């Protein structure tokens, strides 16, 4: 990807995604943290678009920025007397050290390894190919996924139901 538009889009979306993720850590109100999380999800969807993954980008906006973040907001609002200060436990310093080590390790591996990159262009469009793959090669995982969703739906209803 050499054209100026993709490069500018990549850097802007990366800064937006990572900056919003840092704000999830830094901001001192849980509601604002959820809003920054949504911004981070939308940034990731934009990065998918720069990778020419149109179907996954739309799924990301629908499911993460739409459904999951609304679920998280519901959970925050259904726990009104819980602490909303987005504070840390005693694991703050060990967690920071461990996260830095993980970032350095994965980053070093990503840069050192020869990934055997193929020089090729972008996908023309992916929705049709994904649909064919889902109903042809991956039809069994597709059916199992529907069972998982049904089980999760029934489980959530049974857990939260008041009786």
């Amino acid at each position, binding site marked *: 990807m050499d054209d100026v538009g993709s*490069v500018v889009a990549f850097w802007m979306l*990366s800064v937006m995604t*990572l900056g919003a*993720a*840092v704000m*999830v*850590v830094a901001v001192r109100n*849980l509601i604002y943290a*959820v809003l920054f*999380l949504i911004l*981070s*999800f939308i940034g*990731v969807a934009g*990065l998918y678009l720069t*990778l*020419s*993954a149109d*179907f*996954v980008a739309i*799924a990301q906006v629908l*499911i*993460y920025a739409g459904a*999951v973040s609304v*679920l998280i907001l*519901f*959970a*925050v609002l259904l*726990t009104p*007397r*819980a*602490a*909303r200060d987005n*504070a*840390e*436990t005693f694991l703050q310093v060990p*967690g920071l050290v*461990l*996260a*830095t080590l*993980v*970032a350095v390790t*994965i*980053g070093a591996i*990503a*840069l050192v390894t020869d990934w055997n990159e*193929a020089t*090729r262009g*972008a*996908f023309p469009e*992916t929705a049709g190919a994904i649909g064919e*793959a889902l109903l042809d090669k*991956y039809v069994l995982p597709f059916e199992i996924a529907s069972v*998982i*969703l049904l*089980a*999760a739906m029934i*489980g*959530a209803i049974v*857990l*939260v139901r008041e009786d």
Partner: protein
Amino acid sequence: MSVELGHYLMVGAILFSIGLYVALAKRNAVGILMGIELMFNAVNLTLISFSRFVSPPTDVSGHVFVVFVITVAAAEAALALALAVVVYRNRETIDIDRINLMRW
């Protein structure tokens, strides 16, 4: 100047470690779940970048895998948040420092 596979992998690594820190260090159970979602996003971004830069042009297996990960993540989020609401009903808090029933 161009954007290569390594750039996307670095963004994924940094996003994953931010999510790891959130999941480890936040006190609110919903905050921990937010960290887990950030880690899911980092992994999905890495999968899509490998699908774009490494696998052959007609192969969309990486995309299909990401679709399945998103499905399982949505189911997991619904169940985890239901659990948080149930814990709140029983104990009036979702502060993980105060959910210490099984501590010896």
